């Protein structure tokens, strides 16, 4: 039955299309559909009131004529606006909606003041795949054997892949598992730094020592940011030692492995490397699909399999971007009140990708590479042939080509070399990436720096 309505409407529209100008057709009839047919009356659904008013007054005769050509039992047309639902049950209200509201108003502030952990993060809601299997099983093992099994536990990976989720989940699980007998504390390295600064200024170092050395599980997020801040590093080093000697669990996250944080002091680095280092890499296709399905279930929404497949195939960057795109698509779906087609999904993804690259320019890339390797922009752009400049410069060339598709002569000129050097560098890095995962990791980190800039 439904199929027939669609084909009938399609035929009618094809005929109308020949009678109207393209603009008029696109504005007034494009997003229409046939909702029902009852005793010779066709119920036509139009996207908004303006379209209804226009079509009802101007095109009714033509439409009716066209309809009769295909089905002579049609006597009348009725026009509706989408959303003005035929006789669908009214939308479910109150209880669930109210809960959603409450969650939202509290979510932002829901962190537990004692531990700083956000109870939203649990191990159950963490989607596991081969890209994060090691990190996840280590996390589960730590919950069972706090402080003895993998200590310190160092997890690294790109932006939006779930590091924070995982390490906060460990804290939450420990709290639930031991009913609060084991004291956890979660802190971002930025917060740790500002605490140390505050303590130095107010001569209250003892407070800080007590605050951080008096816990059983210390979780520090984004440790790469303490690199280069000497006093903070020192304080962290002593805290680390104290906790470690007393068999307290230490959990650390970073966007790159310890050996790639250039400003980190050697003694800290070697300590990080003494425990378990696990990485989280980009999720593969199956896992991305699982994540999308999980999100849909969480928000009680539905999306066609084809659309899910398309999102999982196209969006490869990170989980946060995946969520962002999914949200946009769901919003689109709600606004239009119609299922989204693959074409719409593709458009949304493309638009998001464009936004991404438009923000990046060449000097940003060079600056970020220089920042990552701790060299000066002048060195990169100059003629210096020092060994420590060679790799950064080649990577900068590669990124200019890869991200902005710049011409080789331009790249050469920009970085004080000629175009053959640029061609060589891009080719070399391109091949190297396949073999050398450390280099790949570096490039990913640099890209993140660029996008953050």
């Amino acid at each position, binding site marked *: 039955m439904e199929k027939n309505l669609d084909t009938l409407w399609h035929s009618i529209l094809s005929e109308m299309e020949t009678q109207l100008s393209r*603009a008029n057709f*696109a*504005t007034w009839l494009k997003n229409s559909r046939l909702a029902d047919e009852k005793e010779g009356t066709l119920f036509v659904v139009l996207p*908004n*009131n*303006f*379209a*209804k*008013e*226009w079509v009802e*007054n101007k095109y009714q005769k033509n439409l009716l004529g066209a309809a009769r050509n295909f089905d002579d039992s049609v006597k009348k047309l009725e026009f509706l*606006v989408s*959303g*003005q639902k035929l006789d669908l049950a009214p*939308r479910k*209200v*109150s209880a669930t*909606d*109210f809960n*959603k*509201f*409450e969650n*939202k*108003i*509290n979510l*932002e*502030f*829901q*962190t537990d*003041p004692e531990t*700083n952990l956000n109870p939203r993060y649990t191990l159950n809601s963490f989607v596991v795949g081969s890209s994060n299997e090691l990190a996840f099983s280590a996390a589960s093992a730590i919950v069972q054997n706090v402080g003895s099994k993998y200590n310190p536990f160092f997890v690294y990976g790109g932006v939006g892949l779930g590091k924070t989720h995982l390490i906060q989940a460990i804290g939450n699980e420990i709290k639930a598992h031991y009913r609060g007998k084991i004291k956890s504390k979660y802190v971002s390295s930025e*917060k740790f730094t*500002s605490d140390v*600064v*505050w303590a130095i200024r107010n001569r209250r170092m003892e407070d800080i020592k007590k605050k951080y050395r008096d816990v059983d599980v210390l979780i520090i997020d984004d440790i790469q940011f303490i690199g280069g801040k000497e006093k903070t590093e020192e304080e962290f080093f002593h805290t680390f030692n104290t906790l470690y000697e007393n068999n307290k669990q230490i959990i650390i996250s970073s966007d790159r492995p310890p050996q790639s944080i250039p400003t980190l002091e050697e003694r800290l680095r070697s300590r990080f490397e003494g425990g378990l280092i696990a990485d989280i890499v980009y999720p593969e296709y199956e896992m991305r699909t699982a994540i999308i399905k999980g999100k849909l279930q969480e928000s009680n929404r539905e999306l066609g399999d084809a659309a899910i497949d398309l999102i999982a195939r196209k969006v490869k960057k990170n989980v946060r971007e995946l969520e962002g795109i999914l*949200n*946009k698509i769901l*919003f689109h779906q*709600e*606004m239009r*009140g119609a299922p989204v087609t693959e074409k719409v999904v593709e458009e949304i993804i493309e638009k998001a990708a464009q936004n991404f690259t438009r923000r990046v320019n060449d000097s940003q890339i060079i600056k970020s590479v220089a920042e990552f390797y701790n060299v000066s922009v002048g060195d990169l752009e100059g003629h210096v042939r020092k060994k420590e400049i060679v790799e950064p410069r080649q990577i900068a060339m590669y990124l200019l080509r890869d991200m902005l598709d710049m011409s080789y002569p331009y790249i050469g000129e920009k970085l004080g070399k000629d175009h053959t050097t640029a061609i060589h560098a891009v080719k070399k890095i391109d091949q190297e990436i396949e073999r050398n995962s450390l280099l790949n990791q570096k490039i990913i980190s640099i890209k993140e720096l660029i996008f953050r800039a």
Partner: protein
Amino acid sequence: MKVAVIKNNLKEGIAAVERAAGENANLPILKNVLLETEDNKLKLTATNLEIAASFYVSGKIIENGKTTVPLDVFSGLITNISSERIDLESKKNVLEIKTDNYQATIHGISSEEFPLIPKISNLNEYIEIESAALKEALSQTIIASQFSELRPELNSIFVDFSLDNLKLVTTDSFRLAEKTLTGGQFQSNRQEPFNLLLPLRSGQEVLRILGDDGKVRLCHDGNQILFKTGQAEFFSRLMEGTFPDYRAVVPQKFSAEANISRQELLNALKLAGIFSARTNEVKMNVLENKKAVGISSSDQTLGENISTIPAKFRGDAKEMSFNWRYLSDGLKALKTDEVFLGLNEDNKPALLKSPNDASYFYLLMPILKT
């Protein structure tokens, strides 16, 4: 069409409809304004197919008719013409503008092409509100809303009519404002209570169109709404979705209450704002044996400050942090010299209102310390 109008009247009309015009690659006529004679007046209409605004300009109608011209061109001309009296005459799709020392012709598009403004089916059922009261209510509530792509139902003003009162509510989930209009401020012949979601943008437009005098009539059916004043009409589609049941989060009791001078608190917040550059966070403390409140903020690199304001506290309060901009927004919406502030433990919203005035309140979530 042939009409003679006074420049300032026409300017007022253009200003009222200007922002309803739209951009649409398929339908270039949306950039135009429809000029037509109706009821011995010149009626201007603009629409973007989401909203539509009309304004009746009084003038001398010599010959009936209608046409459309690009609104930006028309507006530019009328604004800069120096003469008081303007003659407009349309021949086919060309509009001729004439004053005693100026003459122009603008090429337009046939009025046949202009979208038809949807009609409301039950114009006889309405609520009639004092313009000034609706204007105040809108301006007091709109501040608590901001555009969010994720929660479209919050990009709107919840209008809740329950026969003897009319509530306007907005929230962006960090703050919430509710205004109640009561019997004296409106009349209605509607028999049933109803509620609807007015898109935020439409609310802002209505606010612009409303004058300080007279009344505005509000009619709606299904998914559209019409605001009608003596001179203007504003049409909008309504938002779909369900507004959260916000009543449950409105606190009924407070662990601490205070009456504070509105102006002094506003000044203190402005001062504290200077030191809270990035996070907008200011701290509020009860001082001097509950006889004063301290508003302080600090920044590692800039420095720190504290203002002390006399206040009468009842009950106990710990230190709390707020976004000073949000707090100022709420204070600015109030008109009285003294304001009532109700506080609860950490995670609960604070409430702001004028003492002895139950018609308006502003809720604000505190920032939780980390």
